[in-house]
């Protein structure tokens, strides 16, 4: 089966604790290949790390296996998480189980495809600008992007540290929430994780799985016009029908405006590329990774190693990030992107003074056909219009199947306030029940 969709880069087993009890005991899990697994190669979808075998596991992997889940493989992904289709992988594209001629979304495309095809009960992805929610939407499964700081990033190969979180993918909201229960929580190895006992208004002992009770009576749902404008009509109709289901169950909807999100994609790409250009400087072929046969000096050897090891999209982002940080352009691009990020954060904060959650299409488009967007990077970036604002604002969000359009899955995105995971899970479970 696995070969049909190319969901896995490496099929390998890491046994879970056989004595563990709880919802994840005996569950199988696919782990995105940028999350370190001790003794099992972790390629990040790149030639650069084709033979890299981590000497330690990521905190999230230890937590899953301690809870009884068994890792069944390392899931395919866009190279270093850079893509929206899983086509930039050095190990070939993953196909969408809902329609094998189409992409599964990205960058965690292998993770979502593995769950959608029944090759794993659960999966872990990482979400820097939508990389969990996009493939969940395109493959017709559930994906959660946690609040920045809820889940440890220790052992996640960094692409853009200030934006990314590891998140679960599953067939149902409750299963995804149960996986989040296991992986969430502070980690001394990641100083950006928060201890929820220190966060005001949050119950640190709450069960996310228990929040999937479908009770949305009295919940207020903000509908931001900006995230519907420009979306494919078929997507909008499907999403509006799902929001109608929430209203039938007692939720109230109200139109809101988030003017800053018009600049989210620009700000996201400038910041992500800038951070990537710095993070990926570590791949010089000395401590780990492939090294080019070179007679040249230090700098020439690095440049040749990176020419051979990186694919086109990774080079594009490293170069554009270097450009955006360079003298003369730093203020124009990077500083303005940070202003836009603060503006987006402020916009959401203002909106959450009036509404409990914010709903929109996860992706403004239906899944691309394979090869359709690969030569047009800007077109691919623009597909991230609805997901990137959430990362810029450090917020929690979920993508839940809203239905189908032309036989293809459509995802509804529900965004909540910081550490409001329970509320977005509750709202998403009501959408799911209505189907």
């Amino acid at each position: 089966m696995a070969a049909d969709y190319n969901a896995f880069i490496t099929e390998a087993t890491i046994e879970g604790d056989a004595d563990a009890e709880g919802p994840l005991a005996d569950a199988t899990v696919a782990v995105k290949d940028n999350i370190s697994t001790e003794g099992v190669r972790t390629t990040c979808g790149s030639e650069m790390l084709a033979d890299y075998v981590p000497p330690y596991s990521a905190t999230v992997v230890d937590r899953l296996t301690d809870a009884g889940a068994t890792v069944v493989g390392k899931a395919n992904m866009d190279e270093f998480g850079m893509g929206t289709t899983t086509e930039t992988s050095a190990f070939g594209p993953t196909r969408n189980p809902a329609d094998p001629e189409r992409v599964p979304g990205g960058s965690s495309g292998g993770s979502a495809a593995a769950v959608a095809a029944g090759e794993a009960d659960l999966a872990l992805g990482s979400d820097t600008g939508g990389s969990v929610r996009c493939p969940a939407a395109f493959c017709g499964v559930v994906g959660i992007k946690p609040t920045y700081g809820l889940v440890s990033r220790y052992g996640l190969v960094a692409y853009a540290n200030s934006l990314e979180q590891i998140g679960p993918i599953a067939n149902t909201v409750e299963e995804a929430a149960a996986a989040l229960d296991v992986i969430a929580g502070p980690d001394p190895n990641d100083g950006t994780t928060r201890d929820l006992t220190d966060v005001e208004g949050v119950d640190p002992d709450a069960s996310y799985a228990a929040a999937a009770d479908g009770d949305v009576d009295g919940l207020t749902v903000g509908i931001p016009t900006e995230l519907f404008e420009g979306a494919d009509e078929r997507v909008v109709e499907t999403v509006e029908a799902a929001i109608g289901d929430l209203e039938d169950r007692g939720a109230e909807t109200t139109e809101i405006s988030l003017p800053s999100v018009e600049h989210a994609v620009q700000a996201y790409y400038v910041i992500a590329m800038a951070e990537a250009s710095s993070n990926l400087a570590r791949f010089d072929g000395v401590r780990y990774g492939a090294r080019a046969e070179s007679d040249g000096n230090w700098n020439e050897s690095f440049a040749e190693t990176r020419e051979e090891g990186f694919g086109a999209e990774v080079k594009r982002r490293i170069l554009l990030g270097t450009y955006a940080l360079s003298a003369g352009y730093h203020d124009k691009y990077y500083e303005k992107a940070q202003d836009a990020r603060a503006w987006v954060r402020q916009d959401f904060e203002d909106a959450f003074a009036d509404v409990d959650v914010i709903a929109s299409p996860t992706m403004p488009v239906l899944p691309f056909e394979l090869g359709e967007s690969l030569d047009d990077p800007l077109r691919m970036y623009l597909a991230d219009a609805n997901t990137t604002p959430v990362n810029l604002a450090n917020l929690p969000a979920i993508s839940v199947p809203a239905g189908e359009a032309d036989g293809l899955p459509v995802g509804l995105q529900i965004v909540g306030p910081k550490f409001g995971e329970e509320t977005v899970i509750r709202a998403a479970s009501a959408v799911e029940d209505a189907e």
Partner: protein
Amino acid sequence: MSDTSESTDDAEGNEPADADVSAASDSPAVDADEVRHVAELARVRLADDEVETFAAQFGDILDYFDALDEVPETDREEELVNVMRPDEVESGLSQEEALSNAEETEDGYFVGPKVS
């Protein structure tokens, strides 16, 4: 690797950023030489055809990024606190583990390319 303090182009880099915006509409935002220069700063060698492709794509992408000019200056204050831990020795990777993924090692050290 982090030579980003260098200007990408001496002539343009010294001008105020706004001067570049007006020119962007009638000339490409970046030309092949500029792509080569940034690639050199980033230590990524590029093939000639890759330089041409990137120059065209960067033009489109940077044009799109120019809309950031419309973003108002925003108060960026966010509550941040330092996270500290006691400075105590903890177990880490063994030397063998740390060297296990290196292409070339010698006497317990990484071997890098020649310096000059």
